[in-house]
Every structure is written in structure tokens, then in C-alpha cells.
């Protein structure tokens, strides 16, 4: 029964977060601690290096984002003399994630960094690693029933509220502080997108009195973004701006605006994407993209796990800052978020 209770408790909390949220809150209601405060100081480096720890990075999928998190974690591990003994990708398959954990445990890692695919299926999957006393640091999600600090070192995630807030502020600035907005939110019970979407809405409603949200539409399938935007523009042809929950569907919204010959409605969205950024640097509809600091997420995950291993207190819920990327700072923003140079198309325009 405890698994069901915990799952329901987490879902209930997510509901609270989604409705109330003035700042990013952990899946168990934990207060957020900035990632910049989670640091393995230089004075501890030699001591940690002498322990010759090893780590496994067991990801949910492969993407630019995961690559940047991996780079951040790997660089931190290298500084601390920790060998990365396994890197896996579950391709969003819960059974594969469980197999990956079992396989990695054959190498007896001291640390596992991972994004649990969902609270329910991950609870049993991480059980063996938990029992083996591995320092578990989770990205964005928590297996049901796991307690801090007994079962895991920390959850590290984006400053989700700030991402939504910064998107609202950037759109308001691009619209000159007045006008009407369409809000395209992620229509699913997903902790990360729900917090970001609601933070945008809350910020517009509270901080920008001359801007009103006149159209709201949920989206579950990114492929439907273009038709959703078309319907929204048909009803509200004079929309000053549209918020899109992440970059994938934003590409569909951009296509709809172009097809309508609309060059006045501004778009803001979250997470870096080359086609969206290209429109932005060419002075198109996209006003700004708000991104997370994926490299910093990886560094903070590694640092949390190491601090836990050496017996220091680690905050349960750690958040990395958000960056507002505009045409003027696209090179710097890309580098800070993903730790790679932006695609050539963005710098040659």
C-alpha cells in the first residue's frame, strides 16, 4: 500500500505546486536550494581523489540536453578523480532502465546519476542500487516512497518557476508591456512542464497588468501545434504574443504564423532549438528562448553525490538557474546552457 500512498501523495503535491507555485518546489514539497551553493571545495579534492570512487550515468534518453548534463557531471568527476564506469540510455523504456541499473551494478559504482522515468516504475528499478548503498542523485524526478537523506543524496532540476517567469518577462518586454497573449501549455500531468507553464501564467497575471491571456490551449502531441496555433489565430488575429510550452511545438506555431503572413505576433518558448533560434536571430516572430543550464545541472548532480559519500549534509532539492536567450546573447547563452558552441547557422546570420 505504501507505494500507492506515496504515488498519490506525490501526485497531490504536484497538483498543489501547479496551482499555487510562486517558486520551484520539489516533488515532495521540498524548498529549493540554488545549485551554486552545492560545491565540493578545493580543500576536499585530494581526500575525494584518494577514495577512488566510481560513477555510473544512467540516463532516460539521448539528446543535446543529456549530453550537456553528462559533460557537466563528467568534468566534475574528472576533477575529483572519479571514474565513470558506465553510461546508458533507456530510450524512455522503463524495463530497459531497470536492466541498465542491474548491469551497471556489476561494476559496483559508488555513485549513480539518473533521471527516473516515472515515480511508479522507478521505485522497484532503483531498489537494488538503494539497498547496495549507492549514492543516488536524481534529475527532476523521484521514485515513489524514497526518502531523503536515507535513500538518495539529492534531486537536482531546473529552476522551473524562474524559467516560466523569465519567459513571461521576456514576452512582455517584446510586446512593449501591453496586449493580448495566447498560452499553449503541456496538457499532461508532468511535473517539469506543469511548473514552467503555470509560472508563465502566474507572472503575466500578477506582474504585467496591461497584458491579458485571451486564449488558452493544451497540447499533448507536438505534431498538432500548427493546427492549434491556426485555430487560435483565427479567433484572435491580433494576438500580441504566444507562449509555447517547449521548442518542439513552438516550431509548429512558427510555421502557422509564417503561413498566415503574420510577422507581428511574438513567440517565447523554453529549451534551445536551432530552427527557433534561427528565426530569432533573423528578427522573426521569436522574441526569446528560456533555457536551463544543463551543464550546471550535471555538475551539481556530481557534487551532490560526492558530498553525500563523504558524509556531508546535502540539500534534498537543488535547482540550477535559467537563462533568457535573445538574439544578442545567443552565442553566450548556448554555451552556458549546453556547453557547446551554437550551430553555425546562428552565428553566420
Amino acid at each position, binding site marked *: *500500500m505504501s*507505494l*500507492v500512498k506515496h*504515488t498519490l501523495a506525490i501526485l497531490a503535491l504536484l497538483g498543489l505546486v501547479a496551482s499555487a507555485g510562486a517558486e520551484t518546489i520539489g516533488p515532495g514539497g521540498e524548498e529549493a536550494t540554488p545549485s551554486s551553493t552545492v560545491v565540493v571545495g578545493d580543500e576536499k579534492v585530494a581526500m575525494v581523489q584518494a577514495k577512488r570512487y566510481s560513477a555510473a550515468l544512467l*540516463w532516460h534518453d*539521448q539528446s543535446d540536453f543529456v549530453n550537456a548534463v553528462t559533460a557537466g557531471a563528467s568534468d566534475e568527476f574528472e576533477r575529483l578523480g572519479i571514474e*565513470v*564506469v*558506465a*553510461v*546508458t*540510455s533507456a*530510450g*524512455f*523504456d*522503463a*524495463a*530497459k532502465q*531497470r*536492466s*541498465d541499473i*542491474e*548491469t*551497471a551494478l*556489476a*561494476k*559496483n559504482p559508488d555513485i549513480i546519476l539518473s533521471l527516473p522515468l*516515472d*515515480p*511508479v*516504475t522507478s*521505485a*522497484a*528499478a532503483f531498489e537494488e542500487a538503494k539497498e547496495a548503498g549507492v549514492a543516488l542523485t536524481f534529475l527532476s524526478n523521484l521514485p*515513489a516512497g524514497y526518502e531523503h537523506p536515507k535513500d538518495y543524496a539529492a534531486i537536482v532540476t531546473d529552476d522551473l518557476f524562474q524559467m516560466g517567469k523569465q519567459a513571461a518577462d521576456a514576452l512582455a518586454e517584446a510586446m512593449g508591456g501591453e496586449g493580448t497573449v495566447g498560452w499553449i501549455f503541456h496538457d*499532461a*500531468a508532468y511535473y517539469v512542464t506543469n511548473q514552467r507553464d503555470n509560472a508563465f501564467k502566474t507572472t503575466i497575471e500578477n506582474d504585467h497588468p496591461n497584458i491579458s491571456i485571451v486564449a488558452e490551449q493544451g497540447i499533448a502531441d507536438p505534431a498538432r501545434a500548427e493546427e492549434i496555433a491556426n485555430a487560435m489565430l483565427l479567433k484572435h488575429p491580433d494576438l500580441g504574443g504566444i507562449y509555447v510550452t517547449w521548442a518542439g511545438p513552438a516550431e509548429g506555431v512558427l510555421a502557422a504564423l509564417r503561413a498566415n503572413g503574420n510577422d507581428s505576433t511574438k513567440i517565447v518558448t523554453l529549451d534551445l532549438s536551432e530552427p527557433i533560434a534561427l528565426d530569432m536571430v533573423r528578427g522573426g516572430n521569436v522574441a526569446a528562448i528560456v533555457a536551463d543550464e544543463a551543464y550546471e545541472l550535471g555538475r551539481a548532480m556530481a557534487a551532490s553525490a560526492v558530498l553525500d559519500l563523504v558524509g556531508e549534509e546535502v540539500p534534498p532539492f537543488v535547482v540550477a538557474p535559467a537563462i533568457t536567450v535573445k538574439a544578442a546573447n545567443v552565442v553566450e547563452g548556448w554555451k552556458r546552457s549546453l556547453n557547446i558552441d551554437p550551430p553555425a547557422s546562428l552565428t553566420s546570420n
Partner: protein
Amino acid sequence: MAALSWIKRLDLQRSVIYFGFLAIFLFFAATLHDDGFLTTRNLTNIVLQTAPATIMAIGLVFALSAGEIDLSFGSIVAVSALAAAVAMQNGPMVFGVIAGLGAGVLIGAFNGVLVAYLRLPSFLVTLATLGLFAGIARSMTDLRSIPVINDTFTGFFGSGKLLGVPSLVIWTVAAVAAGHVLYRHSRFGAHVLAVGDNARAAQVSGIKVPRIRLMVLTLCGATAGLAGLLYAGRLQAAKYTLGESDLMTVIAAVIVGGTALNGGKGSIIGALLGSLMMGMLNNGLILMGLKVSDQMIVRGVIILVAVAVSLRDTRR
């Protein structure tokens, strides 16, 4: 000279899986002996991780041997696992088993009726039902994962042991033994091969061809249903994504194991080794510490070589 003539007599296609399996095992044993590959725990893990795929592969050997194919088993796995999990929320384990296996058998029979009696090609029927039941799996619980909290069920189908042997190992051995006997030593198995070899000749010799087609696709559904129960037991939860990524693994395991794509020839033991080989590749490449993209490339190349050798000889 004697050795040479022995090699000449060797059926390359039947043997490739044994040599391939042994070569990959020896390679990992030699290169990863310090990395835990040869530990009992790791080798047991490989069998546990491949148990659902092995059981699905048994069903697919029957379907391919009869000249049919089932592409829908990934969706059947998800529907069965979810049906079992939902049934056990308000009822005993037996409800879950009946719901899970029943869903598999019914969907398999649905495929079978369309193929056998409406004479639609199994490739297209099961491609369509793959999408159809993937959609149904998504809508069954509105994309939510359902926890399985029945300890008897999770022990029986997932993490339990009998006399120190993990239940998933027992399921694998039992299913392979039953499948092998049915395939090699029963009238049904002989009829399946006859239909796959030449359906018209089989019909003329009195075999009820549509019935065999219905039965092999129902069997495929049943094995996928059992695989769904094993996933639900192992993860102590069911989710609509279960089985989604198994299609290519299971087909590759079966083909590498010596089953012909165009019917009339197959091997249950080969499918078991094919499935274990896939699991061993996943396991060994992770333990080697390769990057994820490199793991995918190496695995793809090895499967390509193994399938090429298997199929090249089949066509002769």
C-alpha cells in the same frame, strides 16, 4: 581431411547462432573479466533481463515458421501488463493473471481471425493492430503507470525464487522446453512447418491451414501476454511503454537463431540463444564503458553480420 569434410557437412545457417553466441561470450569474458561480466550475478541478470523477449521470441518462431509474422506483440505486452495491474488493484492475483493472459490470447486471436479467415496479410494486419493496441494501452489509464502491489504476483512473475532459482529463469526454461517439444515433437509443430513450407501442399494433404494460422497468431498473443505479466512482475508496475522497444530485438533474436523469414524452418533453442545474445551484447557493451551512441553502432553492426550470415544460407 576428416575435419575439412566435417566443416563441409556443417549447416552454417543452423550453427551461426551457436558460434556467434560462443564468440561474443568469449570476447566479453576475455575483455571484461575484471569488470564483473563473468560474475554469477551478472550472468543471471542477462537471463532475467531477456526473459520477456525470449518468451515473445518463442511465439514468433511459430508464426514465422507458418509463413506469417506478428508485429503487434509490443502493444500486446503493454495492454496485457496494464490489464493485469488494473485487475489486481481490486482483486486477487488470479484476476490479474486471467486479465493479462486473456488480453494477450484475445488480441492474438483477433489478429488470427483477420489473417486466417479474411485472408488479409499478417504483415499489414499486425502493423495496424500494433498502432491500434498502442493507442488502447495509452487510453486505458490515461498514460498513468499503475503500481503492482500484490507480493505473490511480483514474486511469481518477477523477483521471486524457487529453491534459489529466480522465477524469471524458471519461466524461461519452462517456456523454451514447452515450445521446443511443441515445435519439434508434436503434430501441431509439424503442421506449422508444413504450412510455412508450402501452404497449398499442406492443404491438399488434409491440414486445416486457416486453423494453423489462427493458432500461431493466438500463440504469439499468448506469449506476449505472458511477457507482459513478467514485465509487470519485474517492475512492480505497468506502463503503456512496456514492450514498445522489443519489436526489433525479438525479430533479430529469432532470425539470428535460425528461423527463416519466409516460413518452413525455425528453432526454439536458436531463438533462446538469439535472445540471450542480444541481452549479452547490451550488457557487455555497457560494461565496456562505451558511449551510448557507440553501443548502438557496435550492436547494430554485430546484428547485421549475424542476420546476414543466417539469411544468406537460408536463400541457397
